[in-house]
């Protein structure tokens, strides 16, 4: 499947792009993260410490072990700081 992967805040800056389209067969967020980290130092710098990263699947917050079945948009970002 092709996933639209989005990055925000310092993850976007470390990746060097706000978005990439990823061809993957990862079954869960954790598997996708492992694949992305293998892409190189920028991805490793962004996704190396997932304790500092939040994930949304199709714009809903999700856990690392959430399945990617039917998902079209995955977003990675730091804890929110609005308000």
């Amino acid at each position, binding site marked *: 499947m092709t996933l639209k992967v989005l990055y925000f805040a310092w993850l976007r800056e470390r990746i060097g792009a706000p978005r990439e389209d990823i061809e993957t067969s990862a079954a869960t967020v954790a598997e996708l993260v492992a694949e992305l980290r293998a892409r190189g130092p920028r991805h490793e710098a962004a996704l190396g410490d997932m304790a500092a990263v939040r994930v949304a699947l199709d*714009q809903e917050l999700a856990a690392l072990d959430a399945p990617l079945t039917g998902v079209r948009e995955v977003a990675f970002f730091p804890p*929110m700081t609005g308000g």
Partner: protein
Amino acid sequence: MVVRVQQAAFDYGQECAAFASTAAQAHAGAVVTFAGIVRDWPGGGLQGMEIEHYPGMTERALAAIEAEARQRWALQEVLIVHRHGQLAPGDIIMMVATASAHRADAFDAAAFLMDYLKSRAPFWKKEIGPEGAQWVEARETDEEALRRW
């Protein structure tokens, strides 16, 4: 309910006046508003703030938080306005307003909206100072604040 995410500045006083007027027509007896302001550092020197957000998810998250507040409290009106983009020290970042028959509901709902908005709506603040830009880190206390609800 009104939820607005916008780059443009908004007139807090005018929003308060319009909200109270709508609330009065809906027979509310209590209006609570909160405004968040870009606060300079304790020693000064903050030059500006940049707010990034996740278009699409932001609106969904705010609508969900607003719906949850309406389920928990008897609210006549709710307003959420949040800016993104470039802001200067002293600028108003965002506001929420709640209207209810009695004050306890209006106070609790406004505090709830703020607690959830802080930690569950996809906004990120970056502070710009003389030595460059720095992403604001989420505070432990903000996550803890959610537990009381």
